[in-house]
């Protein structure tokens, strides 16, 4: 199948899904009070987006996410490098990290609130806690993906340790690191929104929770649309960079 046909197929699929969303409440199959039509939700989204208060909420959520990723990324990468390079550390810490990785982070949220309140940094901290293990594991996997024979070749041509790090380790690891970053952003977004929905006075999560509680379904769906657009744009951007840096992996 050629590229144009695939694109056409995708467009048809998207139109069909949105069409069903539009049709269900319009035809009275779904209750419009519960499921407002797509066009209504989209119009509400545009109208809300023009409001400074909503932009402030979007901005708070975005900042929390950025701060969480900005802390989790270097911290997790550093820990991952340590574990991948030190056999002894890895043998001691691996089980602990696997356990922490497997526990749903949401059950710790009340403790974050009790210790840190419901402000900006509590959400950042919970975001870091939810993402750092993903970054750590992908950094360790990235280091382990570096082929020893590539390092050997670089040594044979007289590469210094710094040159080996820069010219062999980094390009080898970059695709996996970027994949880790992408997952970290997805999980970080989830964590920040969850923390906002659970207890907060600001942010998109807080708004979505209160629209739901107050039965303002058109706004709720508008919020879902706005957040979806943000998530998709961020995700696709990282994926594009990933593809550029990882085209050689096959």
């Amino acid at each position: 199948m050629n590229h144009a046909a695939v694109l056409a197929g995708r467009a048809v699929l998207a139109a069909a899904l949105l069409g069903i969303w539009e049709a269900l409440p319009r035809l009275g199959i779904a209750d419009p009070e519960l499921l407002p039509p797509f066009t209504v939700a989209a119009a509400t989204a545009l109208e809300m987006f023009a409001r400074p208060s909503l932009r402030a909420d979007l901005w708070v959520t975005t900042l929390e996410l950025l701060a969480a990723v900005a802390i989790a990324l270097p911290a997790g990468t550093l820990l991952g490098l340590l574990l991948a390079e030190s056999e002894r550390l890895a043998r001691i810490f691996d089980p602990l990290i696997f356990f922490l990785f497997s526990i749903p982070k949401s059950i710790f949220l009340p403790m974050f609130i009790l210790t840190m309140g419901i402000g900006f940094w509590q959400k950042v901290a919970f975001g870091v806690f939810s993402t750092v293990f993903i970054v750590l594991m992908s950094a360790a996997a990235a280091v382990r993906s570096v082929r020893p024979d590539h390092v050997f070749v670089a040594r044979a041509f007289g590469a210094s340790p710094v040159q080996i790090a820069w010219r062999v380790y980094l390009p080898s690891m970059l695709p996996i690191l970027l994949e880790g970053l992408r997952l970290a952003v997805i999980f970080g977004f989830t964590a920040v929104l969850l923390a906002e929905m659970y207890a907060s006075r600001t942010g998109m999560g807080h708004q979505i929770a209160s629209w739901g509680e107050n039965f303002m379904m058109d706004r709720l769906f508008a919020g879902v649309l706005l957040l979806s657009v943000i998530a998709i744009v961020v995700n696709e951007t990282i994926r594009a960079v990933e593809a550029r840096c990882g085209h050689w992996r096959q």
Partner: protein
Amino acid sequence: MSQTLAPDAAAAAADAAPIVSVTGLGHVYPSREGPVHALADISLEVGQGKFVVIVGPSGCGKSSLLMMLAGLRHQSEGAILCDGRPMSDPDPDRVGVVFQEANLFPWLTAIENVAFPLALRKVPRAERQARAAAMLELVGLADARGRYPHELSGGMKQRVSIARGLVQNPKVLLMDEPFAALDEQTRMAMGEELLRIWSETGKTVVFVTHSLTEAVYLADEVLVMSARPGRIIDRVAVPLPRPRTYAMMASPVFGALRERIWQQIRASAR
């Protein structure tokens, strides 16, 4: 243990000053079952511009020996001199290396791979490009400069690897079973190609292989190693004229040399 030095081998070694000289090299490494004697009492000289091939049974340490010549591993005893100085660390100005798997960096294009050793030495970009392009031309891959390794065939990858080994203009090219992973036909063609490159550049080549046919076809002199601990048990001069041709493989001289090497290896492996 036969230490017969064929008269013509002695002559071949004497007619040029040695560029590589190894004296009394031995190697012992520790293992769970106690120390392993990998190499013992190895002395050899390689004259300038010569093509020397090392053969021996699997595990005889011939690749280890080559890695020591490259300065990538350290022997426990004995001395290695290359161009008059010890090889304690890798030195790409004296020695270029071609590995068994081409081991190109998959994230670099063919020309970037060839230029890699120059980039390490911070050679200016324009000069790097020019020299790498010239090397790709030499190995017959001028058209493939922008391709990535996954877009190249096995033989092409090895050509890129040879170009990378030569780009710093080293005195000696060390090749560790470079064609072992290639199919028979590609392997034959690469052997011929290597001899052309060798005669055009005048480099000294030390080449490790499993293949006796390849050894006799390529070499001025074949060094035969025994099973562990690896020693040099025979030095076979190959008096076939150059340029070598495939037809020579059918000649009685070729067959006799191959038979002699095979008998040595078989006896040592028992």
